């Protein structure tokens, strides 16, 4: 009874099975299996937030993709992913809504990436580091001209502030809504719009030498 009582405390209350006339045992309850669609549109089981490995395998590619797009450098992505999941490890057990996992990880990833972008800008400003050459893996099926466009894109992004850059990528590349961007960046919707306007001003004009 003690064992089951402990299970009840951690697992939730399940159905009661009568053992004798005076005693019954309550079985632990497991959350029902839910199917969700992944980034590729395929249906898969929603990961259990208490299973760190499962969460990592499910969301690491997403965090890596967001990271590489935000940072524009593949070399830092590995480190970023590890940092994001190390931070997530602390609060993962307290997360009660599995659906919120993706947005929560995105918030951590954006916060960490923004911090890295600011540090990089500071190092460039202090001439401790040169502007990194864009070396990104991209979809080869888009053609060689895509490589030039990607390089041009990141040259422009490097001239923006970290906040404007993040907002623009989340909106135009990741396809997030204004509400989602506001939640991820922990700011208001109008702030997001302002950042997007500032970022857009860097396009549609010849690139400054």
């Amino acid at each position, binding site marked *: 009874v003690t064992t089951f009582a402990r299970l009840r405390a951690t697992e939730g209350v399940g159905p009661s099975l009568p053992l004798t006339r005076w005693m019954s045992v309550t079985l632990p309850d497991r959350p029902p299996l839910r199917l969700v669609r992944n980034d590729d549109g395929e249906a898969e089981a929603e990961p259990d937030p208490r299973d760190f490995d499962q969460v990592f395998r499910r969301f690491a590619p997403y965090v*890596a993709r967001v990271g590489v797009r935000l940072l524009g450098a593949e070399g830092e992505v590995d480190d970023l992913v590890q940092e994001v999941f190390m931070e997530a490890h602390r609060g993962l057990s307290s997360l009660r809504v599995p659906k919120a996992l993706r947005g929560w990880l995105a918030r951590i990833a954006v916060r960490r990436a923004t911090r890295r972008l600011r540090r990089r800008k500071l190092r460039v400003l202090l001439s401790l580091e040169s502007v990194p050459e864009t070396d990104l893996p991209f979809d080869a099926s888009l053609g060689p001209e895509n490589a030039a466009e990607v390089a041009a894109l990141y040259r422009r992004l490097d001239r923006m502030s970290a906040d404007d850059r993040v907002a623009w990528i989340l909106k135009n590349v990741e396809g997030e809504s204004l509400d989602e961007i506001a939640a991820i960046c922990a700011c208001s919707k109008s702030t997001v719009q302002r950042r997007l306007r500032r970022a857009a001003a860097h396009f549609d004009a010849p690139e400054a030498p």
Partner: protein
Amino acid sequence: VNAPLRESDAARAGRGVQSGWGSTDVERALAATHARLRVRKQRMVLGGVGFVVAMAAAFLLLFTKVPTRPLETLVVLVPKPVESVTHFADGSEARSSAGSKVVVRTSTATAIETALDSGEAEFSVVPNPERRFVVHAGGVTVEVVGTRFRVKHQDARVLVEVSRGKVRVTAGAERAELVEDESRWFARGVEASPTETAMDDVGGGVNGAANAIDGGARSAVNPGAGPRERFVDLARRGD
């Protein structure tokens, strides 16, 4: 390179950027993350242990009474203030402390006899082999030729301490010679001669012995009187 880039083209180009992470990359990153988590856990454990140790040490420091060594008593030896100095005609002198009673019994060219009835006095005697210098103190007789010594009454004993020269001490049947830096206690006995005859030679002694009792040294004639009063006192008695 510097051509305008439309926002829509930029967005399309951005969407082409992929992380390229496969299952191998994920597993490698997962292993690395686990390793970093282990390191963090170890650090937290070490930090926790360190914190507990620090708190325990702070608790011990704050709430336990550290036995402190009692302050050692500082003993300062201060010489007793000299109450009076008795000068003898041959240049010898007796420095007596407060409450001491020095009486000159005989003061001639061949003998100076003095008595220390109470307290203590330090005698500084000019060497002169032809003159006897004797100090009586409670039955103890100290005879010197030329020296510096101290005689002190204490309870039933008399201390004789020689700082220079040599003295011969007679205490009843006991006889002793003390040399420089020697001291010894002697039992007090009964004095043979009365002190009243002490000042017989004052003022009339050969070489002017003991004609300069000053500084308030008490005499048997009139203890507490100055030199002038003592002289008058002696004159009345016809001495």
